[in-house]
């Protein structure tokens, strides 16, 4: 049997679609875990990335730390925090935020740092304050990379939010972990399939965001990057 027939045989059963353990609820749980984590990661990484990109200070250091940071094993952090903090929200939120920060931070800082120096000079030349330079020139120009960072972070987080199930929470990981525990591979395949679909949906969503957020004049350029 192929992966898809395993998954299909499982998900065509009507009982998978109802109740607190049904697929719609699990998808909402997954979106809640990943949405909250991404929001917090963005609130930390976007301003920090802009600051680094704008000032050009600490860029090498921060980018390297962020890249090394990606090596933190999310599952290990989850279990460790659960033991330290008990079953609080932080136990699953922190590992997912930690996972989401590096791609956002790196892309945002690179995007802002990569703004054409002549454009910066021009902005300064027409008398913009540093804040105006950032808001009106650097961020709009860097927008394709900022959205790319958010999109990469979102895909990481939405796919990895399955691990919340490891500490007894819901989400699509529930199907993967519970299915493995009783060798119900249809359930495992079904859960994995929905994770993939969700990641694709997130990707499509950020394509739309990019279309809306990137200034008209930059779209051609943006597509190329």
């Amino acid at each position, binding site marked *: 049997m192929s992966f898809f027939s395993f998954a299909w045989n499982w998900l065509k059963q009507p009982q998978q679609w109802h109740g607190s353990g049904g697929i719609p609820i699990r998808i909402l749980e997954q979106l809640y875990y990943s949405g909250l984590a991404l929001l917090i990661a963005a609130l930390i990484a976007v301003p920090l990335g802009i600051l680094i990109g704008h000032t050009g200070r600490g860029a090498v250091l921060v980018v390297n730390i962020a890249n090394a940071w990606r090596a933190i094993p999310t599952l290990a952090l989850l*279990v460790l925090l*659960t*033991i330290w903090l*008990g*079953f609080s929200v932080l136990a699953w939120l922190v590992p997912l935020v930690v996972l989401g920060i590096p791609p956002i931070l790196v892309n945002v800082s690179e995007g802002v740092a990569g703004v054409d120096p002549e454009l910066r000079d021009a902005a300064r030349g027409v008398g913009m304050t540093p804040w105006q330079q950032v808001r009106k020139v650097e961020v709009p120009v860097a927008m394709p990379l900022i959205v790319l960072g958010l999109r990469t972070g979102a895909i990481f987080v939405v796919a990895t939010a399955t691990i919340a*199930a*490891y*500490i*007894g929470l819901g989400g699509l990981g*529930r199907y993967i*972990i*519970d299915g*493995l*525990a*009783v060798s119900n591979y249809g359930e495992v395949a079904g859960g994995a399939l929905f994770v993939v679909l969700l990641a694709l949906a997130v990707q499509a969503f950020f394509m739309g965001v990019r279309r809306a957020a990137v200034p008209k004049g930059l779209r051609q350029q943006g597509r190329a990057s």
Partner: protein
Amino acid sequence: MFPRSRFAAIASPLPRRNLRAGAIGGLALLTSLGLAACGSSGGSGSSGSSSSSSSNPLAPSAAKGSVVVGSANFPENELLAEIYVLALQAKHVKVTPKFNIGAREVYYPQIQKGAISIIPEYNGALLTTSVDTSSTAATTAQVDAALTAKLPSTLEILNPSSAQDKDSVTVTQATAKKDHLTSIADLKPFAKDMAIGGPPEFKTRTDGLVGLKKNYGLTFKSFVPLDESGPLTLAALKDGKVQAADVFTTTPQIVTDKLVALADPKFNFAAQNVVPLVYKKAVTPTITSTLNAISARMTTSALLQMDKAVILDHANYSTVASAWLKAVGLG
């Protein structure tokens, strides 16, 4: 020479040289086995006691009570094997320890053919993973009867100890005191307000929630899928995320986290008594009586304390094992 080598070439895709070496090796092995068999029959005739040991280097361990004590690859089993080794050595039995072999799938075939002579086992797990996977035996007596009936003729189990390392419904001491709990049956009025934790499969396994309902009439408020008596389960109990959980009865944190494993009078969880599994030809009456004396004195709480010492306090296995043997008068 010529026909033989041609025959070899036809008979096997292996390079000729390898085949010949194999044949010679096989012949040597057969010869030594033959000699060994002679040695063993001569040996058992001449000595019932432990005198004149190992004069014949080809004699298998059986003849003179030189035995291989094996262990699985987890601390408790290694500790039990160490206890066996020290006790046997105290009786002047020649012992070769072969610890940390692996899981049952690895060591069971070894003891079946006599490469290991003795290994500490758990009767229920031995029965359902290696001997009779469809067995539904639950009590110690049922499990032992099933093992006695179905073990291969080369193997036997000696007397089981009362010490068990099995699944349990465990609560905190505070909960046990508040609700006067000592047995799973006592949970009857409280289960509906309790969340129970365990590995994900606990939800559907016949000895999990299904059995707790059938055997004790318990329906819990909710089930929280966690891990197999591991850090998450223990954290959830401590944290109050669950009020009861499936914890193995010799998990050392039962001592340190102040937990109570509730008694299971209806054997919802099949018996897992510690019992020596032996290769029949390798054991002598001295060995049998020594191991049975250990089993007679071993208890779950003694095992729990020793597990705590070696796992959490990182004490030396030999020190812990010999201290227990002295304490029960076998050292």
